[in-house]
């Protein structure tokens, strides 16, 4: 018996309060989300590294209709310090990350249709990405981010991009057809990184790249922001054209507006006046 004098939490009212013990009963109490839409959605997570592991875990707990993992790499021992979906035996066997990830995810929630695609996401075109309600970028290079951004934007598929470097994390929300995209945020320093990574013939350069530091708490925080933005946009309660920068040194989170334009090909090239926000 609940006394009338007991103050109920804001997100719990007389209509939705339930003692049901179903898998999603607590998430369903968060009235900001449209759980039925989330549960009918098809979500693609590209990259199963530190960020991807965390985003996949969060997504599978929501019980979407389908969760697809795209990653071409194998599990290595160095992944075990930041990727909890993988085991030592996965590393010893050199299993593909996508295969190992869905095995763990299947144990977390058997109600979700899981798909592992052992491929470089740059092999997939806009037709492929149009089969999803949202795409999460958890990749480690600008080239893949540009590919995901442009193909998703072209097909009006929301794209949420994440990035990590030590104690810094970034999440960008792209919701076409309006609002800035990932490429809108780039400048010449990004192009210099792209030039460094590719030869003049367009092939990936086999050069030494700085090993990006990765820390599990910042990975988890950044991935949680990315995951939360995905379920918000699926629920129709999020705007695009925004970026979040997390600074673990100060435990600060900045919410930044991104304007359409810059040198973005998706939005019509360099400083297109028609595209200035």
């Amino acid at each position: 018996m609940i006394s009338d004098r007991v103050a109920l939490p804001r997100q719990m009212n007389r209509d939705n309060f339930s003692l049901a013990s179903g898998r999603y009963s607590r998430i369903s109490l968060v009235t900001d989300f449209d759980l039925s839409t989330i549960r009918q959605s098809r979500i693609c997570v590209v990259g199963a590294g530190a960020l991807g592991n965390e985003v996949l875990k969060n997504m599978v707990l929501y019980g979407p209709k389908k969760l697809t993992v795209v990653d071409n790499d194998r599990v290595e021992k160095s992944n075990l310090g930041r990727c909890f979906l993988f085991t030592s035996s996965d590393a010893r066997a050199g299993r593909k990350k996508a295969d190992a990830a869905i095995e763990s995810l299947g144990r977390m929630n058997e109600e979700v249709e899981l798909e592992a695609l052992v491929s470089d996401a740059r092999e997939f075109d806009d037709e492929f990405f149009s089969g999803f309600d949202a795409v999460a970028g958890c990749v480690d290079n600008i080239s893949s981010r540009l590919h995901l951004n442009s193909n998703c934007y072209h097909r009006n598929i929301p794209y949420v991009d994440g990035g990590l470097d030590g104690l810094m994390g970034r999440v960008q929300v792209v919701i076409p057809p309006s609002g800035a995209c990932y490429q809108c945020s780039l400048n010449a320093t990004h192009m210099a990184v792209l030039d460094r990574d590719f030869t003049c013939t367009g092939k990936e350069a086999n050069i030494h790249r700085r090993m990006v530091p990765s820390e599990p708490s910042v990975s988890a925080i950044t991935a949680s922001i990315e995951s939360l933005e995905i379920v918000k946009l699926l629920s129709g309660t999020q705007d695009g054209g925004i970026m979040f920068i997390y600074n673990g040194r100060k435990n600060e989170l900045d919410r930044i507006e991104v304007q359409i334009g810059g040198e973005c090909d998706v939005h019509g090239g360099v400083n297109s006046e028609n595209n200035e926000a």
Partner: protein
Amino acid sequence: MKLEVKNAQNGNSTLVEVEGSTKLQELLDSAVEFWAMTNDAYLLKAGRRLLAASKTVEESGLSDGDIIELLPDPEGG
């Protein structure tokens, strides 16, 4: 005019003399060189607004004394 450029990585800041016609990309490149930062991707923001590096100081609506922040753009996943 003078702008204060803050380095989000180390918390340092410096005053930079610029013209209205100065491209923000020049400012960004100078700051990266000044602090001897690695050859990685960076962003500029003013308050809650990401600045387009292809624009000039004037086009970006910046004025004397404004603070802009240099941020690393994390590439890893």
